[in-house]
């Protein structure tokens, strides 16, 4: 068992590292790989507060947009490489998370979700009225790379490896949190906040910490997006569709599970990108009809996400099923 698990892990690592080299002949596939990783970063960041702490934010685009705008502002107004805006964006996002989170995390369930939607829309509309941020037209990054620090490459391969490194770091951090005292508290809060509070867990503080951490990494994803696309406008930075996509990806794979958002991104991003490129603008309608139908079917039949498939099916050899009186239960019947 241990060896087959190790082998699987090794295979995943090899595939992840070799993917852009194998696909180096096809820029479309390379780009797709980078996009999957970028989406996985923001969905995994969302997962910290939405999945682990169970606080369903539907306004995470706020942080994504702050990250993207911080990067582009660093270039446009300060003439710096865009990526230097990333730490500023992360700090700003954490600050916004505190301002939004302190009053709204007290609200439970749908109220928190609604509040995050409202804050998201508020910021989107405000950003489109600000000339400093380029208004509704948005702002562009460096047209031509000046130095390598501009992170402006023609090939998607460098982005792929940058995103892979960030995602690995984020998943490592999430893994560590999952096993730490904080992860334990977050699960307790998610199960029953009242019970957790009565046992002395300061629920508000841990929810806020999860929200701040989540905001920082979503912001980083936004900065990385800007480096790759070189352009941001209010709709693609703060749009509600962006927020919802983070939720959908995480929920599709399995929210509150380490690899859930990555699995969701692996399914949804290719589905969206490939059908867009195959069908072009004309067929975009059909693409999303199918996309919507798939999401509905998964929500209907697998409400806890795709990863729940693995849990439900007992592994031969891992579970001994001691209390099972029927010896024939192992057979496919």
């Amino acid at each position, binding site marked *: 068992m241990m060896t087959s698990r190790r082998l699987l892990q090794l295979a995943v690592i090899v595939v992840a590292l070799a993917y852009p080299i194998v696909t180096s002949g096809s820029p479309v596939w390379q780009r797709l790989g980078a996009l999957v990783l970028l989406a996985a970063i923001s969905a995994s960041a969302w997962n910290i507060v939405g999945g682990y702490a169970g606080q*369903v934010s539907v306004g995470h685009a706020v942080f994504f947009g702050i990250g993207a705008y911080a990067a582009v502002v660093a270039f446009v107004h300060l003439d710096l490489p865009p990526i230097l805006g990333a730490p500023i964006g992360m700090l700003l996002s954490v600050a916004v998370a505190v301002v939004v989170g302190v009053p*709204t995390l007290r609200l439970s369930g749908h109220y928190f979700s609604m509040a995050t939607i*409202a*804050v998201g829309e508020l910021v989107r509309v405000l950003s489109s009225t600000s000339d400093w941020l380029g208004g509704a037209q948005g702002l562009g990054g460096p047209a031509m790379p000046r130095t390598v620090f501009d992170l402006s490459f023609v090939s998607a391969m460098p982005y792929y490896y940058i995103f892979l490194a960030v995602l690995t770091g984020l998943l490592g951090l999430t893994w560590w949190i999952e096993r730490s005292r904080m992860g334990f508290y977050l699960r307790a809060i998610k199960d029953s906040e009242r019970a957790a509070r009565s046992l002395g867990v300061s629920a508000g503080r841990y929810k806020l910490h999860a929200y701040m951490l989540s905001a920082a990494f979503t912001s980083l994803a936004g900065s990385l997006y800007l480096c790759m696309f070189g352009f941001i406008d209010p709709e693609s930075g703060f749009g509600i569709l962006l927020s919802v996509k983070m939720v959908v990806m995480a929920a599709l794979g399995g929210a509150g599970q380490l690899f859930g958002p990555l699995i969701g991104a692996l399914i949804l991003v290719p589905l969206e990108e490939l059908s867009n490129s195959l069908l072009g603008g004309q067929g*975009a309608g059909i693409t999303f009809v199918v996309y*919507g139908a798939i999401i509905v079917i998964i*929500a209907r039949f697998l*409400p806890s996400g795709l990863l729940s498939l693995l849990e439900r099916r007992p592994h031969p050899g891992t579970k001994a099923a001691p209390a099972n009186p029927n010896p024939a239960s192992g057979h496919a019947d």
Partner: protein
Amino acid sequence: MTTTLLLQVVVSGLLLGAVYALFSSGLSLIWGMMNVVNFAHGEFVMLGMYTAVVVWTAMGGGPWASVPIAAILIGTLGVLAYFLLVRHIMRGPMLAQILGTFGLALFLRYGALWVFGANFKTLPDDLVGHSFILGGIRFEGSRVLAGAVGFIVTVLLHLLLTRTSVGSRMLAVSEDATAAQLMGIRPQRMQALAWALAGAATGIAGALVATFFYTSPTVGETLAIVAFVTVALGGFGSVLGALVAGLLIGVVESLSAFLIGPVYKDVIVYAVFVLVLWFRPQGLMGTT
């Protein structure tokens, strides 16, 4: 002069708000009764709007034809959504509900794009009579009709829920489905009825909105956010709350568009919403 102008703005706000109230009351009903947030609500409004467009282009019918048709069609859609999807995801985690209804939203939105195309459709201005001036205030026929019908249907829905036996049975199911079942009420039937009513109210609202607003496949996204704000402001499950909040939002919106500038009307509405959530999270009329 200024007083008349200000009065004009308030009246337009109230008329708009009554329509907001109607299309939010369906969302509020579902939300309060089943604790399900329908992220496809905006798409229900959108399909109600397209019903009006199709009724007009196919047979030249105005709102008197499209409103009942939209009520029946979108009401049926609500029942279908309940039996095929919502019934199954209701007991699941909240995320499954968001996932399921958002998937439905995409399906309907892009299905409409596929069927009707991306172009904006508008109904002729004089479809609902001409505008008239009363006491120095200009009234547009379409908005007066939409506002009046919106107000009346919302009040009727409120009375249905609070004053009739069916309403009491529906509220009983929302309080405690098991207990209601023991009293001989069939929860699924009541919940399906709630979806039918919500769908019908939303369809009517859509058909009315179409008489003065452009119709497009993505219009639901904009309208859904207004509905969310209205419902949260009014209190989940309270149709009366949706009415008060809808009127309030209509007035705040048109006042801030007039006094500060059209771009900022949404900013003010969202800001009011965030403040209300902060100080009174159960909404204006909701209970905790």
